[in-house]
């Protein structure tokens, strides 16, 4: 009798322990941001994702974040500190955190890492990014239809594939609906510098541009567009409050579904290393509500494009498409493969100027 009783007690104690640990120890999820959470752009949207995780899981998770972390040694220290202090899953949300993430992940094989926009995976490191070019196709269409001067301004950050892809996608679809459209591209070599972005917007307006797109994170250009009475698109976040009249639509980085899914996997114990590149369909890229300024038929056209991309019926890079120098890139009906898109370093035919090098 005695052995059985002690086994039972043990089991009961073990069960009790298991139950209490499950209740007392929520999954600890950390986020590292390159900018301040109040940038109304890139880091802001990642933090919205974090808040959505908190709301969705309630007491089952505990989230922490460190903002404005410089890339390099500081990032490595912050990541190590998070791993040491018992985080189970850590999201590192800037390209420059790639090597630090890999380094720290190698030292903490039991901690899971998720690196945004990079290309280095490991057993405990996933990568994820969004197909923003799908959104660019939609707002490119709107820009092509709405411009009266036929000049569209584009504030570009750095000449990397991600940005070049966006320019090409926007241009292709603006040109499709408006053969006379011209793109004026300004490279500002920063992701977030309100004064430089504002200067770029002003310079573009002086060149006769009446619609501005941007691939930088601050709402500065939107503010200028509102002041000067031209049109613009929100980038990363909706930015409606900065340009109530100027804003036509926006591309919103929506990390909520992905973050919730990954934290769920962590809690369920099913987390494994993956590379994710999601677009409009799973909701990672969201098109902000269309402004009333856009006539109903154009709204319908843009919506139809977004729907067909989401449904997989249409790929924004479908031939016939030529490179800037006139050579054939994609034959009629041919679709660009992800490898080419990931390393895109050329403009398509019709865009003026060179990709800076």
């Amino acid at each position, binding site marked *: 009798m005695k052995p059985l009783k002690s086994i039972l007690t043990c089991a009961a104690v073990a069960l009790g322990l298991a139950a209490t640990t499950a209740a007392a120890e929520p999954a600890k999820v950390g986020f590292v941001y390159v900018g301040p959470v109040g940038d109304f752009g890139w880091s802001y949207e990642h933090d919205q994702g974090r808040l959505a995780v908190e709301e969705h899981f309630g007491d089952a998770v505990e989230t922490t974040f460190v903002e404005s972390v410089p890339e390099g040694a500081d990032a490595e220290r912050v990541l190590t500190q998070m791993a*040491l202090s018992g985080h189970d899953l850590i999201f590192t949300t800037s390209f420059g955190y790639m090597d630090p993430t890999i380094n720290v992940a190698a030292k903490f094989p039991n901690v899971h890492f998720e690196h945004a926009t990079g290309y280095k995976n490991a057993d405990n490191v996933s990568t994820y990014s969004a197909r923003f070019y799908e959104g660019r196709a939609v707002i490119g269409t709107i820009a092509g239809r709405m411009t009266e001067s036929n000049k569209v301004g584009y504030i570009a950050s750095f000449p990397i594939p991600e940005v070049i892809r966006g320019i090409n996608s926007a241009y292709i679809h603006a040109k499709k609906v408006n053969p006379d459209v011209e793109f004026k591209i300004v490279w500002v070599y920063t992701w977030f510098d309100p004064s430089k972005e504002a200067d770029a917007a002003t310079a573009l307006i002086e060149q006769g541009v009446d619609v501005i797109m941007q691939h930088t994170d601050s709402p500065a250009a939107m503010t200028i567009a509102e002041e000067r009475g031209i049109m613009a698109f929100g980038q990363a976040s909706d930015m409606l409050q900065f340009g109530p009249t100027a804003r036509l639509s926006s591309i919103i980085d929506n990390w909520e579904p992905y973050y919730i899914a990954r934290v769920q996997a962590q809690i369920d114990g099913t987390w494994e290393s993956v590379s994710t590149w999601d677009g409009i369909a799973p909701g990672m890229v969201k098109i902000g509500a269309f402004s009333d300024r856009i006539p109903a038929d154009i709204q319908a056209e843009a919506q139809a494009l977004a729907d067909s991309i989401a449904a997989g019926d249409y790929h924004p890079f479908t031939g016939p498409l030529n490179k800037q120098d006139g050579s054939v890139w994609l034959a009629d009906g041919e679709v660009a493969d992800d490898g080419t898109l990931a390393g895109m370093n050329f403009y398509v035919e019709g865009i003026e100027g060179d990709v800076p090098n």
Partner: protein
Amino acid sequence: MFRLEKRPQPSQFWTLLTPIIAVVATMIAGGLLFALLGKAPIEAIRTIFWDPLFSEFAWYYRPQILIKAAPLILIGIGLSLGFRAGVWNIGAEGQFILGAIFGAGAGLAFYPADYWFIFPLMVIAGAFGGMLWALIPALLKTRFGTNEILVSLMLVYVAEHILSSVSFGLLKNPEGHGFPGSRNLQQYEAASNAEIIAGTGIHWGVIAALLAVIAAYVLLNRHIIGYQIRLTGQAPRAARFAGVRPNLLIIFCMGLSGALAGVAGMFEVAGPMGQISVDFNQGLGFTAIIVAFLGRLHPVGILFAGMLLALTSVGGDIAQSNLGLPAASIKAFQGMLLFFILASDVLSNFRVRIGTAETA
């Protein structure tokens, strides 16, 4: 009600005591700030000052403080020599960048060869790059009387553009999938500034910083150039009569501070940072100005000031993650520290009297 009376000599007693007063005042004012943000003030201050040194994970943080402090001390020492002589090099950030570019460039030129001389060559190249950048404002000043504050500061922005250009061009990693940035030097053994003893945080930059402290101390106290520097700062006219050639001294101070900033940049790029990238510089060259003044332009003072700033940065990041303090509040906290140190300088230079002046 209160009246300040200038002391004939700065008070030794107060000079030693004011840093402590300033740290205590910062803790009080910072504690108030954290309390207003709804965080437990004592816990926040303990996290910033105590946790990096004595908490459970201090074995990891202590070396990190050395890593963070080394470039600040190295640059700060160089700047302090010029500042003492009234030569205002504000552009250490640019010299830091150029040193990193030259250093990394020298190393990557040999990739993937493995020679013993690669790393020493990188150190020399780094020093040369930084010196070159600092000599531009120095020569313009001695030749044409331009203002070295403006020119050295402007050259920071030029350096940032060069950094951007080489990240996308000359030094871009050919295996980097089209992304900007050089190869990671941490993964190139011959050029890597790795820890000399694993787990201690001590890399060649830390050694160089300590050597710089000693060398600067000896220079200032035992060498004729140190004497000239001090004399020029205190009495420029007297210095001229004593045979100091001001132009030569400007070139010496600028060149040396540039070389030290350049070496610091080289050690950073080859070690903690790993690669040349668009965001390589994080303002260390500007923070080092604060370090130099916080350390009262004294080599040993700069050593402590660098460590203190590194401590609050490392502790600040812990406080962000553990207590949810915003990054801006940590910066404000560090700003308070500088403010109180400089403000309490009044006590060493002036006597505080209560009552009205006897003579108007």
